[in-house]
């Protein structure tokens, strides 16, 4: 019941987001057809505006957009005039989602063991080393890490390709570059969670009952400690799945992240609003999944 209600609330939320995005991108100075070379006559500009209905009042344009949206049509791109926004999403999203999923697995695959390990060895040198690595991963931005990885693994060692998106080997470096931040974040969250859980009363009780330390960690603490990671992983997955401008640009990956940023720079109205909506839908959906996972993991949590 609770989840159905959440789903229903999502609809007005998306409407507000689309209206806001639509309005914001339209009031920005400059338009999609402003170029360095002005057209030879004012009529050329008028023809362009008429073709894409930019000469109508903005509310009318928005209603027209909503009408398209109801029919599953995100409209034509104003920059890539042979393509619709649907084309752009259909071509770019699978690529970004693939890379994002890989990065998500990488983040959990590295972050969870590292967090667990550092928590279990708290205060020893293993903890300091691991925590340092996790902090480093969080601090180093993608535009530094990615070129570093390329120089070391692609140019010096020649183990992996420098860029492009054709073979699985080409996914490895961007996956690491994209997932490193999240991996560090997951490790830190999980370590914190573990330490907190280990101090909670039910663990003390279990310990008093004579449970072994390993069993305490694996069977009891983990379930509680993983909760902050779970709530973080919803937005994290949404973020990773929708692509990263920097990583896609550096590795020449044909994903959707480049389009969102360039769409805004190019005043490609339909692309910006379409991708903002896509991002919002993903975020809402994944947050729902997170809440659902909570009820499953933590018996103390119940939604009414």
């Amino acid at each position, binding site marked *: 019941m609770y989840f159905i209600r959440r789903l229903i609330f999502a609809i007005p939320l998306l409407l507000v987001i689309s209206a806001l995005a639509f309005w914001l991108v339209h009031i920005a100075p400059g338009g999609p057809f402003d170029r360095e070379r002005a057209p030879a*006559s004012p009529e050329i500009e008028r023809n362009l505006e008429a073709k894409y209905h930019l000469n109508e009042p903005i509310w009318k344009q928005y209603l027209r957009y909503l009408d398209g949206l109801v029919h599953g049509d995100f409209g034509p791109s104003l920059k890539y005039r042979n393509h*619709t926004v649907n084309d752009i999403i259909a071509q770019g999203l699978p*690529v970004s989602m693939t890379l994002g999923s890989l990065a998500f697995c990488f983040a959990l695959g590295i972050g969870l063991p590292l967090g667990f390990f550092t928590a279990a060895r708290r205060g020893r040198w293993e903890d300091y080393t691991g925590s340092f690595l996790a902090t480093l991963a969080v601090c180093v931005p993608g535009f530094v890490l990615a070129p570093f990885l390329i120089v070391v693994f692609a*140019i010096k060692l020649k183990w992996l390709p420098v860029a492009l998106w054709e*073979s699985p080997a080409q996914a490895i470096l961007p996956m690491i570059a994209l997932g490193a931040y999240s991996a560090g974040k997951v490790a830190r969250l999980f370590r914190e969670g573990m330490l907190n859980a280990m101090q909670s009363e039910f663990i003390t009780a279990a310990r008093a009952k004579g449970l072994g330390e390993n069993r305490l960690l694996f069977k009891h603490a983990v379930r509680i400690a993983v909760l902050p990671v779970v709530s973080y992983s919803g937005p994290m997955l949404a973020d990773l799945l929708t692509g990263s401008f920097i990583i896609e*640009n550096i590795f020449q990956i044909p994903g959707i992240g480049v389009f969102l940023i360039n769409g805004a720079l190019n005043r490609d109205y339909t692309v910006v609003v379409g991708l903002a909506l896509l991002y919002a839908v993903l975020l809402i959906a994944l947050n729902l999944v997170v809440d659902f996972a909570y009820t499953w993991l933590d018996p103390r949590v119940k939604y009414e």
Partner: protein
Amino acid sequence: MKSASASSRKPEVRSQRARVLRWKAIFCVLTSGFCLLASGCIRSDPPADLTILNGAEPETLDPALLTGQPEFRVVIGLFEGLMQLDPNTARPIPGLAGSFEISPDGRVYTFHLRTNLVWSTGGPITADDVVYSWIRALNPATASDYAGQLFYLKNGEDFNAGKIKDPLLVGVHAPDKFTVRVELNRPTPFFLDICALPITYAVPRQTIEKYGDRWIMARPLPSSGPYELVYWRLNDKIRLKKNPRYWDAAHTQSDIIDLLPVGSPSAALNLYMNGQADIVWDKELVPTELVDLLLKRPDFHQFNYLATYFIRFNVTQKPFDDPRVRQALALAIDKERIVRKITRAGEQPASHLVPEGTANYLPVQGLGYDPARARKLLAEAGYPDGKGFPQFEYTFNAAAGGAAEIHQNIAIELQQMWRDQLGIHMDLRQLEWKVYLSAMDHLDYNLARSSWIGDYNDPQTFLGMFTSNDGNNRTGWKSAAYDTLITGANEQTDLKKREQIFQSAETMLVSNQVPIVPLFFYVGINYFDTNKIQGIYENILDDHPLQCIRKVSPKSTAQGPN
């Protein structure tokens, strides 16, 4: 009691174990699912004969809509006009039309199509197809940015503006299957150049009428040029394969060509150095910080380019409404220092707007570097040693990659030169690209960074820009005398006289009135190994017909002499 608790705990432990197992199972399924997904989405293709890094992702491949060079460099392979470009000089040579005649008054062109023209999907290319393509480009519903390139046609502009509805009144007709007759408003010496521009290329009527705006996505896509479009994956790759039905297919050098959009210069350089690309042909793909080092390599090629970097004055505001002030600022710029210290790719300092090497024209020299005269002029204008000169702004745009840094460094350099030489103070104002364009259009600036790339190889593409009503003027400078000169030049059929008129116009622009200050001429840079790649020639338009380019392996060159 004890046994009861033991028995009650056991199922709980079991269920916990089951839960952990379930977790592990879910994790494994997810991981393997993602891996499958990854291997599924990543695709493999047969290798191409040539891989070219082409710069920005093309906005469109529709010849009537395209505006940029990355688009043109693909479309030049897919469609053809009455004329095509000579790969050596980028001058127009016969394309779909095997021959043509020009009337003595220079206003009527009669083109005779070759008789063996066929679409890549079969079916003849006729004069009607050419007429359809031109009318379509002018049609207001097509909304072509560059429709202006066909305004030289009789009634072209009025048809585009919707003032004339009947396409038969426009000056392009097909008296028979193989003849295209074109009527112009006035003699236009560069009209053959226009006939090699994409807006005139023959496009397939039936496909366009069937698929509308997305017609480029139709497969098979009928092409009139030397190549067919195999696929166009956004931001990923464009693959072309040889069109065996092209009229000159016997001379097409490579069978499969991949053109990759690349946004980052370092990625381009890495791909090239690792052998994943044969040719990189966009100057934007040369990392600016390395440009002087890279140009020392034999595979980096630098050449003159039909483009100028200049400054615009907003002449509607004080003190820049005074030509003496504008001249003073121009004379106080050490342009040599800018190209040597900042741009560093071998650019030539510019005292005039039309680049050296432009066809039909020998440029005039404008203002050089003369700080003493600059100070004198500024004093005459009422600002001795810059006293009382109002604070002003220099507007420049944020750009992608290295260009942004160059714009900024030039701005700082100018700021310093004018402070040191003239004692005037300037603030810098960097704007995002579209905001900058909007500021220029609304004359919301004092001084602004500008540049211009010639559309075709003729002084008109540069000098026509500063007539009073041209949308690209953007300085507020209006001169009836200048307008008369430009119109006069374009009425002229005698090329020598035309050149002289243009020269007086340019003198007015860069020496007397100075609404603009040219800083330097751009160079083009591309990189490829001349031992492996043949058929790319340095030309002022930096355009390279795809059908001429081929890769030679050491083996085939060895076989050559036999």
